[in-house]
């Protein structure tokens, strides 16, 4: 969606929120019409019975039958491929960075459930497999846990196929598969050359490249079948590590330990505590924290005249802070509220200067965090000025124009990614924006957004939020006044949520958002989308409701993930 386009020019949007559900009704609405009084603007949003759209009555629905999750054959994303070959071979060359771009799920997450592999992709798989296999020759004996000189080349070939195959394909290979690979090995000259061919075949196989799921065979004509233990293990490692299972997880699967909720919970605990979980949490937050059509924070460029302090190193420090913050909260058992309001931050000297922090003061009271990158310390920002992830310098810099702030970006982010209220695309034919004026308050410059009825439907949703966040300039630094010294007014009114009302600044906004059931439901939906690499459909309503309920009950994000991993959606699939 061309949101960036929309944000450059004054918009002529049609009215209001764009429900993803084709019927025009959001099956996940917490109640009828976002909690506001029934629609008084006549523009058709919310569950308006008069339109003939079915209204959501807000009562818990019955959820009969097994709530199997999304289906569709999923292929490894680039990041999962890289993590997998790192696990398998210690590779650090990240070959998948050269692969074709992944598909996109809900305009947020990389995911290859729909994407059809092109000729170029298959070619890339071949090239990567050949390069990886060739580089792995010195460690083939280690991978096989077998010494060809002592035990014989063919024995070790069998051991290599068995052990490496089990890790790469996340299951035991069948006899036929092992025989086929052994025949391939035999076309080589020796253990090494044959072994390299075996690796090439294992890494190009659909059993490596796809999350191939069939489920347990059932006698009857069940609509939903349980995943096999191995299939479940792969889902767990994809969710929690963005990678393949380790031996411990495969062993647990093989022993049937994942048949019980307790067994799954035990693995989730172990895996969340493992440093490999940081990769997945980081993948989640880096993709969630943005908007379609914006670059990632790591690629963000700014106008050098307006933001002379903007540099690659400053930007990298912001990337690190956001990653550490989310990782600390998520894996540390934090809640959605904490994500929204915590004063916790992570800075090096350059970033501390950018924030205007005195490191001696800012570290007082900050938690002890292990394993921080060189030069970084945990700090406590000012709780009123820097609540939560939203106001971290990197977040605000990302949600800005290259040469100024970005109230529409920021408002759109809160609507789309925090409230899960997708915005409609602007219509064609909007004009060019006026030149920015550093002496005029933002809300004056955006006046047309609210006065022009073609614009206001969308912009009354985004702009007030953005105006309330004007204390952070386009590089994420604090700006309390305009260029002429006038204080910036950050009072605004939040509308079309379940927590509407006036607020002042980020502190006021996040105070409202942490009360919002819509936000909690959005967090549940967002993790659902990430976990399944699929946008939810109406048949997922029960699952999402149950997950949101966890957050409503005050559970942590970690507990949410445990619920997700033990849900029927995660453990069952629709039978073919």
């Amino acid at each position, binding site marked *: 969606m061309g949101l*960036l*386009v929309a944000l*450059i020019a004054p918009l002529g949007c049609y009215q209001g929120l764009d429900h993803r559900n084709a019927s025009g009704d959001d099956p996940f609405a917490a109640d009828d019409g976002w909690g506001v009084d029934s629609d008084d603007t006549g523009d058709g949003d919310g569950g308006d019975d008069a339109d003939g759209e079915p209204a959501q009555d807000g009562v818990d629905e019955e959820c009969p039958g097994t709530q199997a999750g999304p289906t569709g054959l999923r292929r490894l994303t680039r990041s999962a491929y890289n993590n997998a070959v790192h696990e398998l071979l210690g590779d650090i060359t990240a070959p998948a960075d050269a692969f074709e771009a992944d598909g996109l799920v809900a305009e947020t997450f990389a995911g290859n459930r729909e994407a*059809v592999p092109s000729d170029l992709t298959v*070619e890339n798989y071949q090239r990567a497999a050949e390069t990886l296999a060739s580089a792995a020759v010195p460690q083939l004996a280690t991978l096989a846990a077998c010494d060809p000189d002592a035990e014989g080349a063919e024995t070790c070939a069998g051991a290599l196929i068995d052990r490496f195959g089990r890790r790469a394909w996340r299951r035991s290979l069948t006899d036929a598969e092992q025989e086929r690979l052994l025949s*391939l090995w035999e076309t080589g000259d020796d253990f090494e050359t044959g072994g390299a061919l075996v690796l090439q075949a294992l890494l190009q196989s659909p059993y490596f490249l796809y999350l191939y799921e069939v489920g347990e065979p059932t006698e009857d004509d069940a609509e939903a079948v349980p995943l096999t233990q191995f299939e479940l293990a792969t889902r767990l490692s994809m969710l929690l590590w963005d990678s393949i299972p380790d031996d411990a997880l495969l062993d647990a699967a093989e022993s049937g330990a994942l048949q019980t909720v307790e067994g799954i919970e035990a693995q989730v605990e172990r895996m969340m505590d493992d440093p490999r979980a940081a990769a997945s949490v980081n993948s989640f937050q880096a993709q969630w924290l943005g908007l379609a*059509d914006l670059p990632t924070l790591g690629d963000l460029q700014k106008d050098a005249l307006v933001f002379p302090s903007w540099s*690659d190193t400053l930007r990298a420090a912001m990337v690190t802070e956001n990653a550490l913050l989310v990782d600390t909260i998520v894996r540390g058992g934090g809640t959605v509220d904490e994500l929204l309001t915590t004063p916790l931050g992570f800075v090096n000297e350059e970033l501390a200067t950018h924030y205007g922090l005195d490191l001696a003061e800012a570290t007082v009271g900050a938690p002890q965090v292990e394993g921080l990158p060189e030069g970084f310390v945990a700090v406590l920002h000012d709780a009123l000025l820097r609540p939560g992830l939203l106001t971290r310098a990197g977040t605000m810099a990302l949600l800005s124009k*290259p040469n100024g702030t970005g109230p529409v970006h920021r408002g759109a982010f809160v609507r789309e990614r925090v409230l899960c209220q997708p915005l409609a695309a602007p219509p064609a034919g909007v004009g060019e*924006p006026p030149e920015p004026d550093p002496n005029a308050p933002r809300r004056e410059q955006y006046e047309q957004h609210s006065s022009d009825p073609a614009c206001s439907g969308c912009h009354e949703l985004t702009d007030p939020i953005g105006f309330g966040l004007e204390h952070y300039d386009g590089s994420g630094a604090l700006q309390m006044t305009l260029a002429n010294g006038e204080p910036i007014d950050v009072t605004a009114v939040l509308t079309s949520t379940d927590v509407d009302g006036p607020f002042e600044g980020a502190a006021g906004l996040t105070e409202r958002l942490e009360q919002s059931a819509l936000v909690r439901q959005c967090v549940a939906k967002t993790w659902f989308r990430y976990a399944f690499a699929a946008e939810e459909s109406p048949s997922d309503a029960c699952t999402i409701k149950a997950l949101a309920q966890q957050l409503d009950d005050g559970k942590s994000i970690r507990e949410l993930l445990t619920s997700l991993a033990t849900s029927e959606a995660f453990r069952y699939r629709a039978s073919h």
Partner: protein
Amino acid sequence: MHLLKPRTRRTFLRSLSLGAAAAPFIPLLRSHAADGACPKRLLIFHTPHGLARANWKPSGTESDWALSPILEPLAAYKDRTVVVTGLNNEAAKGGTAADHKRAKDTYLTASPLTADEESGGMSIDQVIADAVAGPPNVHDSLQCGVRTDSKGLNTRGPGQGISPVMDPGLQYDRVFGDIDGDDAELSRLRTNRQNVIDVVRADLDRVKGEVAAEDLEKIESHLGGLTKLEDGLASLGSLPPGCTVPSPPSGFGPSNDDDYPLIARAHLDVVAASLACDRTRVATVKFAGGQRVFSWIDGINNVQHDNCHQGNNPNRPLYDDLTATGIYFAEELAYLLGQLDAIPEGDGSVLDQSLVVWTTEMSNGGHDWDDMPITIVGGAGGALQTDRLLDYSGRALNDLWISLAQLMDVDLDTFGDPSLVQGALPGLA
């Protein structure tokens, strides 16, 4: 694949093996003037988000015209240039997809997007590639992305956008890798690859027999990719006589935005060599813009997207910046033309056999699709009448693509959305 008079034993074997597997009838190329005639090449040089029209559009009459400031870097090639003005991207108009998507994903297809916002058909470069590719090509076409891998410009059809290759080193490997080694080594490589492909295919066939109907397309496409790899085995190690293999590109970080200009040059070098050595006959080079600051251009501080929107006419504040960007792209095009012109072929150079088309998916920096700026340089083996400034106001891009196809000896009398077609542009071919 198309049957050409075989030039080497390897290429003969390749086409024979294809013939055995493929349909009995393999369409012949429309014409090759004589045995051993040089193949024509098509190169799409695509820059982002329009050009400052007031400084791009040349002045003058058809045969008495002067280069504009943005086109000035092409001075050495003016006599082989045709400037085409007035064409509209009609297919981009209408529909509800975002402007950028509509502009880019309809530009080479000349068809509106589908209801699912997918490409409305195959892009013209792919249509032409299907017709003109043949031995000794190793790829039917190449797509190079200078800091972009976004799909949509080049496409095989709905949902089949082709992602450009971003790393010039990878593109080089795809084109010039696998040529080293003596006959025995190449034979070994061929055998090994075939054996691995066979094992992988067995896995895919089994998966294909088990997957749900909704997943079949993915596995079939994957199998198609394997077949493509198999088809390529016959041409391992083969190079046309007279081809000078360039050294691998170096001196840049392929993922480093700061190395944009170095990456651009590396892509142009690889593409020029690929065309010259007949490893492919159709290529697209796509330049990224968007949220990048083109800081290597003197005076530019703002991101390219803003330069376009705030520089599209002389009284806008970033007009000079947008003009400077256009001049940068013209300089890169001049560099590419020089690379192609340096390689003798037939009576002239590779450039004389080629059509190099400078395109951009917006017209004048805003989200506008009328009077698109198009510059064609080359000769198409003598078919293109050059050194002209042409205006085709009121016609759609469809007609340009039809003309280009005909210049490439591809038999096309319609392309894209038929309601937008009038036919080949008169006087272009």
